[in-house]
């Protein structure tokens, strides 16, 4: 497949499409509690626009990979800078409520209600697998079922919750 080049890209579309993706990646890497995350997202977007405008995107890779590389480099720079200013940089917590950061509070409320309404066996599997953080094998051993069955049950529980999210959207 022929990749797009700088000249053939619509900048507005690129920003619209990639802002949430970059935001997600930045928050996952440095945590939404780090106050700089919004500035970093803006810097990355500015950098992407500059590179596209100056013809540095030559279509050797996909635009997604191009933006991912810029994002990754900026995050590494940020972490290195922070490591120099602090002797110890606290590890970002994996779940620093990116839901709120992404202004998906409503989605979180819907998810909460949907989980609450699930049958006990589905709630239990979500509890053990996600809340307690047990592996598939550990959950399987605990419930006396196979790891494959655990995956199926988790998948089905998520499907039910997602279905609820889509209906209410």
């Amino acid at each position, binding site marked *: 497949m022929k990749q797009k080049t700088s000249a053939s890209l619509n900048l507005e579309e690129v920003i619209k*499409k*990639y802002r*949430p*993706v970059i935001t*997600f*990646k930045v928050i996952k890497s440095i945590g939404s509690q780090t106050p700089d995350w919004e500035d970093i997202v803006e810097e990355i977007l500015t950098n992407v626009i500059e590179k596209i405008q100056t013809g540095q995107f030559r279509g050797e890779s*996909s635009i*997604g*990979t191009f*933006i*991912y590389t810029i*994002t*990754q480099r900026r995050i590494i720079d940020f972490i290195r800078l922070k490591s120099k200013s602090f002797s110890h940089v606290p590890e970002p917590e*994996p*779940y620093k*409520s*990116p*839901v709120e950061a*992404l202004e*998906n509070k409503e*989605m*979180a409320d819907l*998810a*909460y209600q949907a*989980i*609450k309404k699930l049958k*006990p066996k589905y*709630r*239990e599997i*979500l*509890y053990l697998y*996600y*809340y307690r*953080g047990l592996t598939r094998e550990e959950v399987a051993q605990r419930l006396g079922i196979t790891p494959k069955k655990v995956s199926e049950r*988790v998948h089905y529980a*998520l499907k039910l*919750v*997602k279905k609820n*999210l889509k209906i209410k959207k």
Partner: protein
Amino acid sequence: MKKCQYEDLIDDYLLGRLSPPEREAFEEHYFNCSLCFQKLQEQDAIISVIKSQGAELFQDIYAREHTKAPSWLERLSAFLPYRQVAVAVATAAVVLLIVLGINYFNKPSSPSSSLLMTWSEESLSLLFLR
């Protein structure tokens, strides 16, 4: 609709269970696949809710899991109130005493038992005389 091969990695990515190269490959993928990114966002929202509000969401399961099984005595006392247990024990003691008493007085005295009695009476009288 054909399933994306990276879809199965969403969970492991969100739970931090991917190796660094796997994680990078997956991240690069979701920068290129809007369908996977959409699923990733949805799943992240659900897992975030579970992680942040799980204590409240799974209160009943947690309580059930952390309640130890009661001992037989606790189960009995739960079944019978303390007063009933006390009355039952007292009644059993009285019945036992009556049975032993009846048994003692109705028993024909054998030479060995009379010998035993004499010996015990003698030793008791000696003890008191001292």
